[in-house]
């Protein structure tokens, strides 16, 4: 009988995830197949060995500050929302004011009006471009399948 179907059962056996029926089938196969017995034993040894390894841990003070860092960031996010909303409102008002007082006013020299128009158009274009890039990244940023 082929050993292949039992390779996966070996994994489940090592990890304590093998059902009673599969266990009986695996034991029957192992009784007759010494290469599989050896393979199972070596996989078990590897699992035992890994239990002695420890993942690198941060300093104790990092754990002490862990929650406060999350809390502070959550608070700051709210602050950033207020700042951004305020900035957008002010920028809108300023643009309107510049248009009214400066660009559309016949009393202002044409070179100054042209400069002001280009500046406002450039800033608007930059804003739209950055916003569109961020939006498309947000929509298309699929992490699945990324291999390092």
């Amino acid at each position, binding site marked *: 009988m082929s050993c292949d179907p039992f*390779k*996966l059962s*070996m*994994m*489940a056996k090592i*990890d304590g*995830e093998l059902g009673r029926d599969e266990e009986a089938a695996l034991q029957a196969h192992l009784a007759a197949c010494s290469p599989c017995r050896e393979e199972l034993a*070596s*996989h078990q*040894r*590897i*699992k*035992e*060995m*890994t*239990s*002695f*390894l*420890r*993942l*690198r*841990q*941060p300093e104790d003070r*990092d*754990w002490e500050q*862990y*929650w406060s*860092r*999350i*809390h502070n*960031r*959550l608070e700051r*996010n709210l602050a950033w929302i207020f700042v951004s909303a305020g900035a957008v409102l002010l920028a809108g008002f300023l643009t309107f004011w510049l248009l009214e007082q400066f660009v559309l006013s016949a009393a202002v020299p044409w070179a100054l009006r042209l400069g002001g128009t280009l500046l406002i158009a450039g800033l608007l274009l930059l804003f739209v471009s950055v916003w569109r890039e961020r939006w498309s990244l947000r929509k298309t*940023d699929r*992490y*699945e399948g*990324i*291999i*390092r």
Partner: protein
Amino acid sequence: MPEKEIGWDEKGCIEQLQKGNKDALAPLVEFYRKRAYNIALGFVRNPEDALEMSQLAFIKVYRSIRHFDGQRAFFPWFYQILRNTCFNFLQKKKKLKEESLEEADSSGSESLFTISRTPEEDFRIGEQRRLLAEAIQQLKPKEREILLMQHFHQMSYSEIAESLGIPIGTVMSRLYQARSALREYLERHYPSGLKHVM
């Protein structure tokens, strides 16, 4: 999966969070922070970055908890958020490196493990552990991820399957491939075979 502590009510915390109670995040963080850090470390390989990514994942949990289906297990959902956060970070880091024409991936050479031995254990054991740590780091990313999930994050097959969106059969076959690769690596470096290891 670690034992649930007395008084710990995950479902209750999640319900409170979904109602907008920010304080309910604290016990969730307290319970999962070490696991979150260890998982992130497996991806980013650097303790500082792993702390940062795990904290960021909790912030994302807070922001998107209203989309979480309370009938499902929380941890696989959280794992996906954390994993995506780490992938996103690595992608940005890689892009930055490419832009600065830096070829060496410094994070790739950092060790995931601290290798220690007690005074009673001989030098040979320390060497074997170092070799095993090296072997784990040589695994393909998919194999390393699943091995870390099972061996170091104590996740069950069903949790792994749900977290990665794969069938349990695939979990087992990936684990088999990972362990076989480790076995081959160790046998190559210990010509006398694994029987003499440990």
